[in-house]
């Protein structure tokens, strides 16, 4: 089948769907949707439709990136825009069906935004939202908007046109095209894709194309738009001269199933296998579920894992493969669909591109989004994320996941690029406020990286463990005055003495926290105080005398029986027995449990009747 035939068939199929009188309901069932409870919403929608005998088409989509609104459900009636509803529960789903499908009320009170040209009174358009306008959705262009399970849906929005285009080019022209776009991996910092492909093509022997879909951003793409990634795989394979490839997807039954289903559809229409689209190009793809390990972000380690060996990175050498992340490959397909010049227009002229980020932590609107390089970090955190939330002040941002840097609030004007994400591909941005102890968070990050060290380089294997131990001692009240200097020296040593980017970046959280928040370390070491009141050793839990109403909630929550009290008595925590587990804090319905650090709160020695303490105090 030629591409024209394929496209016409897909367009006809999509037109038939569009012109059918049946409304369509879209439910985000990607990882974040499922975590928010989308599956129970989905089953309620199905049962409501069956019960009310409504013929509607239910589509499971990927995530749009507004994870704070999950479960996100959209309803599209013929000739109307798609209306999105956020934080849908099974009950609100039923009332939306009753209102908009049985009746004709789009429920603007529940709706968040619309997608489409027409408008609905009282509901903003998606394109008007600042969180959308800030973005440059290249890799994420279809995520959450199309049916990831339908190849026709992808072709109808311009899909596989890029592949058709590249097959008409020579290999050299294809590589020249990607070079013009300036696409690189990790965005803005790594080797330009053009150079990587050229080097692979010149190398002797058979070549392979390896898709690396192991990070949360990559899985997000696989779940939301697997065909955009696979089109990129095919284009890159053609340009490198690879006839065989591996799609490495993190052990995740949902993402792997979506990728497998998409590959099956491709094989069925002749886009995978021998003689793709009637050309001489052939490509066979094997989908491999790879267990999670941080070191697999190293190309050489991933290649070894595919060979069935222990995934230890080796010194840079010629791999018989090009390894690219899903995020990059989804951008590759966009470059060939829309032109290299179009992509080069995003971000700064000398370093164009976009980057997918996962915004999480203490932020009002966490989610996943794609921004042009050069966008100030602060604009992303406040414009997309809505800032740290009411009544909180942002303290720091961990940019780049477990291998990233803590950036202070004063560094938020830094443009998105190598300065913000020096650690490579990971686009995780975690926002911390005054409630978070950076020493404690960094300690746990190092525990993770230490466990993930492959063990090849001594400084990474032992050094990350030592960094973790020193940090643990600081949080446990055993910190020594010269610990910060020791951490800095050791961190620099680990960086210098490690072969791969895991070891070279593992000390980043420690070194950056020391550089910007040294006073927090010193408060722990010298003043035996945790400013965020997180570290148990320096924190005292106590019950506020004026708030306690004498109910048994905290007493029942305490696993150590450390809380004394009774009906109508102000409860008292026995500091000797308290293990600082914190379970009493959320248990109190009146917010009477409080934390203090570095000072001793005034509390009675034994429970006193509610109200009596205040009176005595005044008298």
């Amino acid at each position, binding site marked *: 089948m030629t591409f024209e035939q394929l496209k016409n068939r897909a367009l006809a199929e999509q037109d038939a769907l569009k012109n059918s009188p049946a409304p369509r309901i879209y439910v985000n069932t990607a*990882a*974040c949707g*499922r*975590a*928010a*409870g989308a*599956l129970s919403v989905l089953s309620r929608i199905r049962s409501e439709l069956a019960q009310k005998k409504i013929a509607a088409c239910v589509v499971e989509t990927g995530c749009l990136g507004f*994870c*704070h609104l*999950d479960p996100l459900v959209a309803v599209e009636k013929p000739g109307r825009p798609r209306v999105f509803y956020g934080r849908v529960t099974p009950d609100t789903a039923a009332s939306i069906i009753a209102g908009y499908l049985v009746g004709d009320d789009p429920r603007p009170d529940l709706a968040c935004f619309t997608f489409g040209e027409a408008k609905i009174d009282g509901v903003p358009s998606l394109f008007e939202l600042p969180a959308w306008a800030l973005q440059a959705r290249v890799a994420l262009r279809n995520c959450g908007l199309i049916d990831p399970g339908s190849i026709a849906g992808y072709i109808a929005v311009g899909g596989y046109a890029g592949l058709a285009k590249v097959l008409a080019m020579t290999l050299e022209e294809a590589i020249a095209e990607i070079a013009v776009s300036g696409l690189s991996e990790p965005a803005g910092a790594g080797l330009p894709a053009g150079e990587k492909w050229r080097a692979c093509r010149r190398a002797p022997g058979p070549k392979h194309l390896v898709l690396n879909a192991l990070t*949360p951003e990559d*899985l997000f793409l696989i779940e939301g738009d697997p065909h955009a990634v696979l089109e990129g795989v095919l284009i890159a394979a053609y340009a490198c001269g690879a006839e065989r490839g591996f799609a490495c997807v*993190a*052990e*995740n*039954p949902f993402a792997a199933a979506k990728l497998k289903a998409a590959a099956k559809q491709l094989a069925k229409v002749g886009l995978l296998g021998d003689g793709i689209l009637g050309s001489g190009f052939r490509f066979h793809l094997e989908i*491999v*579920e*790879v*267990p*999670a*390990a941080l070191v697999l972000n190293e190309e050489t380690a991933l290649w070894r*894992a*595919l*060979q*069935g*060996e*222990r*995934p230890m990175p080796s010194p840079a050498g010629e791999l018989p493969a090009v390894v690219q992340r899903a995020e990059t490959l989804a951008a590759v397909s966009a470059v060939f669909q829309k032109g290299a010049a179009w992509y080069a227009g995003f971000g700064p002229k000398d370093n164009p591109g976009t980057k997918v980020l*996962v*915004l*999480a*932590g*203490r932020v009002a609107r*966490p*989610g*996943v989004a794609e921004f042009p390089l050069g966008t100030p970090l602060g604009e992303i955190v406040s414009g997309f994320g809505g800032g740290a939330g009411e009544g909180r002040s942002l303290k720091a941002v*961990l940019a780049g996941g*477990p291998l990233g840097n803590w950036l202070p609030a004063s560094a938020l004007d830094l443009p998105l690029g190598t300065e913000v994400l020096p650690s490579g591909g990971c686009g*995780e941005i*975690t926002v*911390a406020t005054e*409630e*978070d102890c950076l020493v404690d*968070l960094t300690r*746990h*990050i190092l525990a*993770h990286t230490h*466990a*993930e060290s*492959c063990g090849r380089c001594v400084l990474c294997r032992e050094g990350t463990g030592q960094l973790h131990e020193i940090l643990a001692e600081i949080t446990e009240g055993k910190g020594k005055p010269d610990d910060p200097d020791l951490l800095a020296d050791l961190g620099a040593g680990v960086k210098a003495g490690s072969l791969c980017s895991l070891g070279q970046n593992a000390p980043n959280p420690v070194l950056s926290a020391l550089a910007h928040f040294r006073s927090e370390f010193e408060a722990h070491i010298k003043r035996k105080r945790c400013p965020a009141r997180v570290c148990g050793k320096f924190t005292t839990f106590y019950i506020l005398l004026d708030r306690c109403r004498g109910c048994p909630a905290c007493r029942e929550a305490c*696993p150590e029986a450390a809380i004394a009290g009774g009906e109508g008595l102000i409860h008292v925590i026995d500091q000797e027995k308290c293990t600082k*587990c*914190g*379970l009493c804090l*959320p248990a109190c319905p009146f917010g009477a449990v409080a934390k203090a650090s570095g000072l001793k709160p005034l509390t009675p020695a034994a429970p006193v009747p509610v109200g009596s303490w205040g009176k005595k105090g005044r008298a």
Partner: protein
Amino acid sequence: MVANQQQPLPKTAGGFPPDRSSLLSLLQKAQEEKGYLTREAVAEIARMLGLSPNEVYSVASFFAGFRFAPPGEHTVAVCLCPACRQQGAGLILKTIERELGITPGRTTSDKKYTLEAAPFCGCSPLAPVVAVDGGLHGRVTPIRAKELLAQTGACGASRTIPAR
């Protein structure tokens, strides 16, 4: 792909080409079948690929995802990534530890629950995240964590089981 091509090998190894590059897939398949990697499964994989069992163990033990002991009927994983930890994952882990009477990496003595600490969840915007038998649950509170345990069956019964 490279190793052991001289040795006579069966044409397929459990549906995969009989060379070392099939190792990960074979290990996953074996774990899927029994819930963990049994000694016999490892020996069988080693035989099919012409490797020693030690070589197979050396790869399998590298990944935290492979188990060498049978898991409980239900697996409860608490994500401890920075975003989850900030928003109370530690407290949730403690709640579950207390309910089940086990620490991460352990299985209750009635073989009902295995508790795991996960380094990342893949959906940190919904932190804190708990996965029960692979099903993700976001924005979990300690109370919700107890409910999730209760939904898997009689969690009250397991509370009496002493730690380890």
